């Protein structure tokens, strides 16, 4: 690489450099922060992300390939990075009070989140199986640690252990697929891979490799059949981390899936039907199993499996509208899911865990405003207009029907009627039961800001989707 190329590469990856440098500085500064000054950590972390976001927007105007084809800064990556920033910043804002209550107010918490963000950003920009791997591992290693952050809580420890073991296996599978591809095509770059495979029928070895890679990626977004870790890990992890994992890393997983799956190598192959099956089974499993959950976090875990299934429907549709529909879905999901998690996190106070659904009985009576917000997020998750959740599903369905997958669309809507049941059940508990206890939500200005912002997004995108749709469509077009 010449100096000029290196310079260009550094410019292209400026946001990543900002985040990783900021994380390193915070790691050192974090040791100097005294008790009761943790506000500084939140402020500094948010500042780092904001600077990165600013840099990202500055670079958004053109496509910048970098690091000899390992990395690219294009609109597709920009869109996903914006979703990551959104998820990370809102997680920071939700974390402060929660960390206090749970007694996990150490600086590593924020630093690890920044590193996870760094990993996700690499995933969004990676154009080579190896750089994908690097980003992926960086991200999951941080989330492994964060999952086990409640050191004195057995569930948290168990969740972390489970996550590490299963995650390592899935990584192994993914790497095996990568090695097969390299062996067969002699390259790991996505574009070169497509060029290397022109002859049909497709080499069975390659198909096998693709299946392995699919399996590795499907694990990260929590789709069937690699979903088993999701409920346990989501339940055991600190709720703030659950919120983060259900939005950020999941979106990162989809970024990679879109890049890899929509590569001609995969799109042309018989593996495609596998993706459709995964979508159907994932959504069905998530929706049906969620029906019987009593724990709010577990329910949201299954709900997030179901939503992943719905987003995969968008992948199945493919084409530019299909890609755009997945991206818009993830953006909207970030708003509504962080909103509902914000509400759950806020409930964690004193002896109240906020985890048992029945504990929310009569919440509407004592806190009508907050209950209305929860109602908004829940109806949005269920996909009822005029909330954003409806438009997200609507656009995926449009993409499906456009491609002629009407049957899949019918299956998708029937399963969302099933899924609607458990969201509405929570609304029922909140609104239609008598309160059994007093509520004292941990409402700090930061939590308030988060809830207001996510509510604004949930209703705003629902009523005025045009601009966001345009953004997703442009970003899906790539350069």
């Amino acid at each position, binding site marked *: 690489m010449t100096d000029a190329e290196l310079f260009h590469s550094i410019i292209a990856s400026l946001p990543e450099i900002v985040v990783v440098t900021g994380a390193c500085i915070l790691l050192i500064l974090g040791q100097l922060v005294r008790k009761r000054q943790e506000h500084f950590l939140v402020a500094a972390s948010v500042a780092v992300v904001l600077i990165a976001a600013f840099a990202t927007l500055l670079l958004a105007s053109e496509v910048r390939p970098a690091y000899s084809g390992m990395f690219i800064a294009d609109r597709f990556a920009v869109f996903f990075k914006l979703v990551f920033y959104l998820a990370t910043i809102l997680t920071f804002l939700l974390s402060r009070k929660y960390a206090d209550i749970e007694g996990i107010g150490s600086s590593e918490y924020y630093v690890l989140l920044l590193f996870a963000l760094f990993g996700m950003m690499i995933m969004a920009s990676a154009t080579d199986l190896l750089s994908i791997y690097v980003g992926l591992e960086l991200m999951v290693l941080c989330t492994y640690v964060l999952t086990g952050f409640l050191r004195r809580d057995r569930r948290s420890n168990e969740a972390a252990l489970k996550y590490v073991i299963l995650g390592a296996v899935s990584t192994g599978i993914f790497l095996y697929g990568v090695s097969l591809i390299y062996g067969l095509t002699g390259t790991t770059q996505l574009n070169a891979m497509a060029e290397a495979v022109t002859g049909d029928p497709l080499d069975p070895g390659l198909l096998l490799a693709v299946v392995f890679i699919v399996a590795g990626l499907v694990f990260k977004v929590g789709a069937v059949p690699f979903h088993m870790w999701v409920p346990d890990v989501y339940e055991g992890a600190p709720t703030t981390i659950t919120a983060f994992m259900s939005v950020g890393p999941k979106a990162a997983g989809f970024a990679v899936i879109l890049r890899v799956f929509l590569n001609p190598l995969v799109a042309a192959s018989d593996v495609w039907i596998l993706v459709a099956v995964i979508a159907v089974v994932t959504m069905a499993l998530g929706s049906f199993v969620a029906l019987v959950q009593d724990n709010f976090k577990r329910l949201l875990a299954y709900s997030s499996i179901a939503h992943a299934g719905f987003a995969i429907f968008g992948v199945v549709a493919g084409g530019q509208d299909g890609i755009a529909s997945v991206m818009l879905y993830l953006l909207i999901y970030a708003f509504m899911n962080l909103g509902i998690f914000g509400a759950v996190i806020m409930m964690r106070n004193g002896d109240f865990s906020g985890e048992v659904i029945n504990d929310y009985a009569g919440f*509407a009576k004592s806190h*009508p405003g907050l209950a209305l917000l929860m*109602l908004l997020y829940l*109806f949005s998750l269920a996909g*009822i*207009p*005029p909330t954003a959740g*409806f438009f997200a599903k*609507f*656009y995926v*369905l*449009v993409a499906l*029907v*456009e491609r002629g997958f*009407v049957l899949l*669309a*019918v299956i998708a*809507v*029937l399963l*969302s*009627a099933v899924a*609607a*049941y458990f969201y*509405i*059940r929570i*609304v*029922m508990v909140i*609104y*239609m039961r008598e309160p059994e206890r007093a509520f004292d939500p941990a409402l700090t200005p930061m939590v308030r800001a988060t809830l207001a912002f996510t509510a604004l997004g949930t209703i705003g995108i629902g009523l005025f*989707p*045009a601009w966001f*749709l*345009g953004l997703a*469509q442009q970003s899906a077009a790539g350069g």
Partner: protein
Amino acid sequence: MGFPLLSLILFTPAAGAAVLMFLRSDDAVRWTALVVTVLDLVLAIALLAGFDTTTHEMQFTETVPWVPALGITYALGVDGISALFVFLTALLGSVSVLASWVAIERKVKAFMVSLLSMQALMLGVFSALDLFLFYVCWEAMLIPMYLIIGVWGGDGRVYAAFKFFLYTLAGSLLFLIGVIALYFHGGETFDILALTAQDLPFRVQSWLFFAFLIAFAVKVPMVPVHTWLPDAHVQAPTAGSIILAGVLLKMGAYGFLRFSLPMLPEASVYFSPLMLALSALAIVYGGLLALAQDDLKKLVAYSSISHMGFVTMGIFALNIRGLEGGILQMFNHGVTTGALFLFVGLIYERTHTRSIADYGGLMKVAPVYTVFLALFTLSSMALPGTNSFVGELLVLSGGFAANLAVGAAAVLGATLGAAYLLGMYRRVALGPASVGARFKIRDVNAREMVAILPLAVFVLWVGLYPKPFLEIIDASVKHLLAEVHDEGSGR
């Protein structure tokens, strides 16, 4: 685009709901809600006054781009059919506020907000000229209605609310797929008028017909997807029942008129025997079920199934008398059944029982109440001189013209109607005054009178002089029929 009267009608209740959020006292909430709905009613009357009955064209149209990338617009407009229902919605809106004046004691603000948002969305359904807008309003109504039933309803409200929600949602979601499929088959537009002008292949039409049928049949509701209705009606508070019976059930029938018939004419003609048979089934089956009820509200609820059977029969008779009768009957059913639910609510507030067996001799303790109850009962029975007579006669003559057996079934249903309604009235109002001894019953007060009177006026007005009402829909119906038969027979 002239003065945005339709938007004003739509946004008046919506803005009212927003204002209510900031009010503190329950009385202020009630009065504001009343003022808002009355204002909305005045606007709706202005709409009818300015309505040109000589044309079938959409009037008071407004178009603003909404999501240009997908061809979605905020497009409003009314023809004769929708104008009538915009008016009905506004009318029943005021009545509902009055009906819940004292019946709703807790969370008055939240209730009125739900009621007003409900009204805005219903008006949106009737005036939307964009499929997407239509669908959003159609579906969003689930939220306030779910809350109205589930929070302020009776003892089994949670179950009823769930059932209502899931039935309608499952039906509507398939409709959504139909809408999207129509979008791609009809040249990537959601413009209802442009889609109406499209000529789709028969195969596509029949698929879409069934996708739409499921959604509309649930809303109407047609047998066999009617089972949510008695639960929802019985559990809902009075205002909820009035809205459900008066407006919500009309939406399914309106869907047939606005989408199935004009957009899928060949399929509509082809499947009309099926629809007629289902209607006849609903008429007779609903009547039999009503005959067996002891609960006043259930009786009215099941009678609705029967009456809505007349509506769908009129529509799918696919002739001018049937269609005009069906549409008029939609309006009539809204007025009459809305009033009957109001009356059930009034007496329930006083006695806290809905079992017919608990009543008797109401005539002696509440004469005014029973006189008006008689009027609406007779109207529901379609006695000459009342509104339903005109509608039912038209439907029957249209039904007989379409199919003899179906017409005969409808006559049987009408007889059943006389049986259960007269039986109900006898057991409630006549006989020795047993209720007077058990409950302290006062007659209707001035506020309740204000709610009742306009409905009574329409019962007699339509019954004695239906011409203005038929005039409003006439041009649109003729145009609709021409559309169905020109294209429907061209296969």
